[in-house]
């Protein structure tokens, strides 16, 4: 499953690509160590602390590339968890309207566009029984509560008839009550983020502008670049950070 997210779909190529920035970062560090604490780059001179910072940044990029497939997989699992009520509802609706269960699952996979579901469908189409197909994919991906729900759904598909529809109805109601609990948790977390946003994104810049200009009057320093940094860089960066956090929190409660 992870191989889908490796660069060029090859583990070897992925790790080779990740080692490039680490190696590039170590180059100035080695030169500095060999040069007795200093290394010359064109007209500039680089010292040990600067070389260490460069290596740290490049190593972080390398590690990020190594961890990227795991991150992508975990984000896909998150999406699967978020969309479970919708998946179950769609299947239930289609089965109730007369669609065969497996066809309904195929439609859902097409609609939701998640690699994990694609893999389960592929296994089913290759002849694996539905519940077993979920277990197979779970072995590849790792444990996650979403697989338990999917296994139950697949077992219901195997049952067929009226009981499948009844089971999916109960499953949907159960998932919706879980969502209610998620909503309460999301609102609590959001309140904390809102407070953080208010204090760091708004009150802090106002305080910063007032303090910086007052101190500049006393010390005679030029604070215009600092205030510009605050207005044009700090506020937008903090806002983006808050927006990303809020999106993550609210997404848990959305359907």
């Amino acid at each position, binding site marked *: 499953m992870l191989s889908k997210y490796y660069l060029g779909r090859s583990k070897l190529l992925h790790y080779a690509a990740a080692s490039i920035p680490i190696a590039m970062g170590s180059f100035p560090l080695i030169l500095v160590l060999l040069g007795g604490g200093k290394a010359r780059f064109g007209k500039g001179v680089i010292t040990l602390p600067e070389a260490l910072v460069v290596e740290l940044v490049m190593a972080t990029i390398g590690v990020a590339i190594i961890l990227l497939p795991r991150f992508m997989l975990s984000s896909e699992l998150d999406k699967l968890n978020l969309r479970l*009520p*919708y998946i179950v*509802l*769609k299947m*239930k*609706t*289609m089965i*109730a*309207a*007369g*669609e065969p269960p497996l066809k309904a699952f195929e*439609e859902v996979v097409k*609609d939701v566009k998640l690699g994990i579901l694609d893999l389960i469908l592929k296994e089913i189409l290759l002849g694996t029984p539905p519940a077993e197909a979920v277990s197979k994919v779970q072995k590849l991906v790792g444990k996650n509560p979403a697989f338990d729900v999917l296994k139950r759904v697949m077992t219901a598909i195997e049952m067929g008839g009226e009981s499948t*529809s009844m089971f999916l*109805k109960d499953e*949907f*109601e159960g998932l*919706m009550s879980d*969502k*209610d609990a998620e*909503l309460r948790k999301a*609102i609590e977390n*959001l309140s904390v*983020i*809102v407070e953080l*946003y*208010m204090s760091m*994104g*708004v009150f802090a*810049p*106002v305080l910063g*502008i*007032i303090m910086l*200009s*007052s101190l*500049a*009057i*006393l*010390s*005679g*320093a*030029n*604070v*215009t670049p600092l*205030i*510009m940094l*605050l*207005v*044009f860089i700090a*506020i*937008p960066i903090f*806002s*983006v950070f*808050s*927006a990303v956090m*809020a*999106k993550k929190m*609210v997404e848990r*409660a959305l*359907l």
Partner: protein
Amino acid sequence: MRFGLPKIRVELSSRDKKLVRYVSFSLPVISFMIFLALHEKIMGVPINFLDPKDALLISFITAVSLVPAAALEFKWEWELVTLENEIPAFLSALEGNLRAGLPMPRAIHEASKYVKFLRGRLLTMVKAMYLGSTLEEATKYLRGSKSNLLELMADYLSMLSRSGEEMYRTVREFREAVETIVSYSKRLRDATRSFLATLYLVMFVYLVSTVIFLATFIYPLSQQTTTVGMPLIGKVNPDVMTSLVIYGVLVEAVTNGVVVSYFTGSRHVSSLIHALILLFISIAVYAVLIFMKSALPIPTVSIPKT
């Protein structure tokens, strides 16, 4: 007497909306470029970004050019929420009509009378069916919005067209599930509505504190000199400070509008319209402050001679 085919009104698809969105959000950049190009010709002097009047003008132009985007985002979000809220009412009416034995197109036509905002799409669908499309084909007029629920209803109706008798039974079950989702979404919106108040509070705090700071500290101090004739304010330029505060309100308004939209779980940047209202109020307040600067009561500071 005029005869003709009924008109089919097609709503904007999500792809068209994306295009309109790109255009509307690029308006501030376009208008800023035009402003830069025409400033010297109109004003007779080159632009000075750290002049409060130019800062005010730039903020005003940005705010005005953001109005179409903010209005559209607000409208689309409102339409989406209203459409989703109407789905259970439509399904309930559809269930009744099917129970009464009406054929599907007629049942949808009659049920559309119980809804207001969904009616356009439903009537288009019905017209397409009267013109010869199958129900499955006609459901395309329900698609293309950002609503999963509407997509699901379209899927359900196209499934229904393939199934046989006693359709009303499945309609009831589907309606119950949709009602659960709609009431859940309502609860989510109600719970996050208070975050919109954050936007107003935040902008109000920024506006009041900066206006007080400029009017009672920076401006009076800029007019005082020490005994040796040096300005008491030092290297702080009141005009530069005012400009930066104005840019600050612009950045705060736009970012707050976006952030609060995420806080409220909107599918569009619908809170931008509230941010723009506050931005216009802020611009008006700063304009009064700048143009009435000379009328401000300046306290006299007596510095004892040493």
